[in-house]
């Protein structure tokens, strides 16, 4: 859910401009033929001076230009949703375990970081983080964009934008793969493309040159956003792998006193009776995030939910290969085998966004 919201906000804030800068050429080409046709078909209204015609032209153009833009955006939305579905399905095929998913998510994050650094022109080496369609495909798209003005052209060109995704879109595509689920992948790209549509429409409608002009000013902003998303993704991937050095796991450890007894730390009050630990999976994460437990004895970890709809429901303990979808409301017990003193067992949601740890003393 969080990823879908992030995708929607990314689309709303930066996606439209970024996409327009990359894909605007296709739209501009199809609009150009529409404008030519409008001018050609314009009725001869020059009966009472030039002012009447001057007023008639913009109205005719407005009506006719809105249609191909809408068709273009509709096709783009459908094509990207399908692409998200396929990418999510690809991610699910690749997903073998929480750890493999963590590796994928980390790779996605690295791609995002590379994309951001490329956009910021930090070093030419970051240009490798680009998807360039082959020359023959580019040529075909270009020829096609100069085609007729029928509804089929903007529809087809809109769908073809999947072949020339902008940097932010590529980052969202990577995120879709990282979900490891076809429906979630489709939802992410649907949300992103939908979010990007109003700005894309407005900018394209006002002038097709606006995208290029604004891109100059917004590139750094877009890159900064992708950079943040990349860092979040890398952190999520590492957390999902149970890596002790992931920023989330480091924060959990640093913010929790290690040498105090369960009773004095407050958090480990989750231990209710001998051999039993309780963690609440809430919509905003796990509570407590940090628990202490006796070493060398088997434990029952009870994870409770109450109206929980966030990804914290998808509970993962990478080291024990536990990957369980919890009920919206209820509790699920997990057997924890005896652990050595000093061992820290990390748990997280399946997206690696929320985490926690159990320290054995």
């Amino acid at each position, binding site marked *: 859910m969080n990823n879908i919201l992030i995708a929607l906000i990314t689309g709303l804030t930066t996606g439209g401009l970024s996409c327009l*800068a*990359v*894909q*605007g*050429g296709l739209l501009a080409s199809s609009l150009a033929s529409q404008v030519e046709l409008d001018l050609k078909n314009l009725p001869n209204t020059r009966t009472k001076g030039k002012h009447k015609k001057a007023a008639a032209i913009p109205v005719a153009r407005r009506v006719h230009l809105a249609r191909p833009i809408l068709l273009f955006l509709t096709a783009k939305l459908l094509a990207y949703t399908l692409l998200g579905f396929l990418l999510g399905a690809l991610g699910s095929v690749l997903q073998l375990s929480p750890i493999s998913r963590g590796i994928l998510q980390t790779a996605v994050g690295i791609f995002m970081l590379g994309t951001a650094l490329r*956009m910021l*022109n930090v070093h*030419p080496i970051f*240009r*490798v983080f*680009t*998807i*360039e369609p082959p*020359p023959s495909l*580019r*040529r075909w*798209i*270009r*020829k096609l964009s*100069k085609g007729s003005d029928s509804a089929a052209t903007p529809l087809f060109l809109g769908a073809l934008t999947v072949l*020339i995704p*902008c*940097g932010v879109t590529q980052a969202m595509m990577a995120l879709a793969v990282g979900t490891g689920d076809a429906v979630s992948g489709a939802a992410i790209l649907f949300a992103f493309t939908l979010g990007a549509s109003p700005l894309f429409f407005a900018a394209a409608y006002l002038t097709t040159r606006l995208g290029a002009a604004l*891109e100059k000013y917004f*590139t750094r902003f877009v890159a900064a956003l992708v950079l943040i998303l990349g860092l979040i993704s890398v952190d999520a991937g590492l957390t999902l792998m149970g890596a002790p050095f992931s920023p989330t796991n480091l924060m959990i450890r640093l913010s929790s006193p290690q040498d105090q007894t369960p009773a004095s730390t407050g958090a480990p009050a989750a231990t209710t009776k001998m051999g039993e630990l309780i963690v609440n999976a809430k919509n905003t994460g796990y509570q407590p995030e940090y628990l202490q437990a006796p070493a060398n004895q088997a434990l029952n970890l009870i994870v409770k939910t109450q109206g929980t709809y966030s990804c914290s429901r998808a509970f993962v303990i990478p080291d024990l290969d536990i990957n369980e979808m919890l009920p919206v409301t209820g509790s699920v017990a997990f057997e924890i085998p005896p652990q050595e003193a000093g061992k820290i067992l990390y748990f997280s949601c399946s997206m690696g966004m929320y985490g926690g740890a159990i320290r054995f003393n």
Partner: protein
Amino acid sequence: MDRVTFTITDMHCPNCVMRLEGIEDDLPGVHRATASYRSQTMEVEYDEALVTVKEIASAIRDKGYEPIC
């Protein structure tokens, strides 16, 4: 058919590639234009009887890029 390679260091996004390759349609005599964002170059195959390197460079400049031959 002759061939010339330009270095175009102000390609700042992959879309520039398609924009630049448009000279293929704009300039008679240009048989094929293939740009690369990664290498920041564009290779042009042209008919020297119909177009000169200077005219090709000028067409690139018209698109807002500075070619180095």
